[in-house]
């Protein structure tokens, strides 16, 4: 009997300790430090359907370095969780910068990838950033995004007179083919993210589609083809990458909580690519919990439904790139910070 009472006492003590911690949760929001505003530091926020992750990066000579990071489940209103996460990050490092980029994963994002061909009459003149900007603007405006607003645009590849080049600016040639990636979202949603940053007193430099950055990190690691999967509890994002191009990004509302149903979702999402002539043989999981179970389901689903995916390999992108569970996305987004 005494033992039971002791156990009960211990439980009560634990609850008391939890209650003592609560005031810090409800305490006023931590604001980024005005003193620490330097040109080299920036914040990265990842907002997906289930979590908000924040990273404080400092831009070093070679690449941005992560100073501190936090992640929190979205169990309450977006504004509340964002501010709470920011507070937690400020507790780890009070000198938070103001500049921020937000990476979003929203099922309503519409993406468009295309190759824009530019026939240059003045082939002996060097290409300028204005030339490239003109092509991107033209491509962005030509696309019918169903009333959505263009919020992100990037050159994914450049081929000059049949030769793939790293940077078209300054190059000379007659035919330039630019791989363009554009992302569109409803204005109301973009306003919402801007308001989140505004209320947190952050200078929002840009909003970027999260999967684009992840795919770029994947490509930078030396791989050119793959099916990338981020599986949250109730959401999945699938990026189909072939020959260094994002063929398409799909999201659906099934995840690791129901692996059997998730396999069904995977099958139907992949069927949208069934007409594609060449399929990657690498399935790369990232920021995914319970990968072993899902890998088994994915293997069975692919073998049963897709004859061209029999020799598929699986990997964990976080492990390969050396990132913790949620930090792969933050690092991928931080590359955008280099160009702030």
């Amino acid at each position, binding site marked *: 009997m005494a033992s039971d009472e002791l156990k009960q006492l211990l439980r009560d003590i634990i609850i008391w300790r939890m209650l003592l911690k609560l005031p810090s949760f409800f305490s006023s929001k931590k604001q980024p430090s005005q003193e620490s505003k330097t040109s080299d530091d920036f914040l990265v926020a990842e907002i997906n359907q289930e979590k908000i992750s924040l990273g404080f990066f400092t831009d070093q000579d070679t690449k941005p370095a992560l100073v501190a990071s936090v992640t929190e489940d979205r169990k309450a209103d*977006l504004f509340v969780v964002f501010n709470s996460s920011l507070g937690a990050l400020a507790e780890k490092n009070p000198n938070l910068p103001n500049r921020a980029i937000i990476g979003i994963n929203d099922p309503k994002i519409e993406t468009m990838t295309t190759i824009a061909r530019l026939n240059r009459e003045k082939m002996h003149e060097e290409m300028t950033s204005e030339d490239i900007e003109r092509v991107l603007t033209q491509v962005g405006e030509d696309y019918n995004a169903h009333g959505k607003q263009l919020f992100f645009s990037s050159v994914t590849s450049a081929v000059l*007179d049949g030769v793939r080049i*790293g940077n078209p600016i300054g*190059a000379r*040639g007659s035919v330039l083919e630019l791989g363009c990636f554009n992302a569109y979202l409803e204005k109301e949603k973009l306003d919402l993210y801007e308001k989140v940053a505004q209320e947190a007193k952050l200078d929002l430099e840009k909003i970027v589609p999260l999967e684009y950055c992840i795919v770029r990190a994947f490509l930078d690691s030396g791989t050119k083809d793959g099916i990338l999967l981020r599986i949250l509890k109730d959401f999945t994002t699938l990026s189909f990458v072939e020959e260094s191009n994002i063929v398409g990004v*799909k999201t*659906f509302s099934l995840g690791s909580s129901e692996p059997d149903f998730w396999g*069904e979702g995977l099958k139907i999402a992949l069927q*949208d690519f069934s007409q594609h002539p060449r399929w990657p043989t690498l399935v790369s999981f990232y920021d995914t919990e319970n990968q072993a179970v899902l890998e088994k389901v994915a293997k069975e689903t692919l073998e049963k439904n897709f004859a061209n995916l029999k020799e598929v390999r699986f990997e964990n992108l976080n492990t390969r790139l050396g990132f913790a569970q949620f930090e792969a996305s933050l690092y991928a987004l931080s590359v955008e910070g280099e160009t702030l």
Partner: protein
Amino acid sequence: MKTLEFGIGTSLAKILSTLKGVEDNDITVIIPRESPLLENPLNIKILEKSASDLGKSLVFAEGVRSSPNVEEEPNLEPKTAIPSPSVPTNSLPTHSFEEPSSNVTNFNIAPSFVDRLLRFLAKKVRHSGIFLIGGVALLFLLGGYLFLENVPTAAINLYLDNQELIKEITVTGSPLVSEPDPLKKEIPLTPLTATKSSSDSAKTTGKKTVGTSATGTVTLRNYNTVTAKTFPKGTVIKATDALEGAKYILDQVVTVPQGSTSSHIDSSGKKINETDPGRKDATVTSVEVGTKYNASSGQTFVVGTEGFENVNAVASAGLSGGTSKEVTVVSETDVKNLTEKLTKQLVGNVNQEFGGKLSQGQKLVEGFSDTKVLQKDLTHQVGDEAELFGIDMELSVTGYAYNSSELETLLYIAVESSVPEGYEVAQGAAITSEVLKTENKSITLLAKLNGYAITKVDRENLMSSLKGKSLDQAENFLRSQSNIAGFEIILSPSLPGFLNKIPTNGSKIKIEAVKKSD
């Protein structure tokens, strides 16, 4: 026809699970318009295809706000005011699916905690008495014993005579060796393989002259009056005079008839013989390109190996069409340089990857790897005209790693012969290694040990002799050992009187041999 109505926060998995359990084949599904599921057309597609796989047909009715008995999950986004169209109720049976309500337990924490604490203390007081005192004394004794057995530690530093010890050996590492061999001084190398691909581009540096050959018609002249002359296609004719050295070839087989001779008497009465050569026109093309092979009319040529007096040729209308210009092309050096650059880059990437795969004690041999090109695609071939060219290459790289503990073992075995009798190698010797050279299938490593040989001490005997001894006894014992030059005993914590002694628990005694300072 069955109608299923779901709440705004019902998950896709829940709806799929419900569909699976419904026996009817025709189902009307009502999902509130504000449901996040409807934001994504792929979710609807998943519902439709899954139902279709189950042999069911789905009809989506426009959703209404969930009824009071349908629980709403908190909306994650700030709600936007989307008007909800009303849907007329029909006579079909409707099933509302409620999300399980959250399992909330209400804790009335403060009174419960205080009550229980008071009750607990009161009970303890009621049972106080002799048993309590006896129990407390027993606890103290037990605690004291456990304390003496587990807490005090003794660090014994032995100062021993020493000699500096430096030893270098060269060791061969090879993937063909399976086990370390102290006699041959060989250690195995473990292969690590990875495949990487990358592409890169570079400016071309090769130069090539391109253009067209000069062509035209020449008249071949045969001065031999006896036989005709036949020249095969491709016979070289060489220009004379100003264009001397320029070569042309005949575009077809040419047979030049023999010449004829005629005689006449001139005014002085002398007989004059005149030869009229046989003639045949033929087209020729210059061997090389360029304007310098264009020839004016009257240009003469030597034909094949014939002497000029026997057979020659003349361009009666001249030769034209020869042009030339210098262009930039892909050279062999360009391909070689870019291939080397890509290979270096890929090997570097792979080595970085290997670094993360090494197990404890493994060391990667820098600059020693086998590479195999699995695929190499060039955007342009050598000799192609281009300003830029690119290579897409896939490489299989095999790197090699050795186990540093195996190397150390060989080093310790080798150093044994240098240790004087009665001495042993002191722990903590500095061991370094470097790759001296790499050969086809092996490497040569230089391993170096820099440390001390100290007088040998039997630590186990020493420990069993010292266990449980008082500080004075321990010091006397150590002084009596001829091979120990000095010592230091540190007892922690410092306890009063008889308690201050070497622990009886061997795991709490640490004996370290220290080189005697000079």
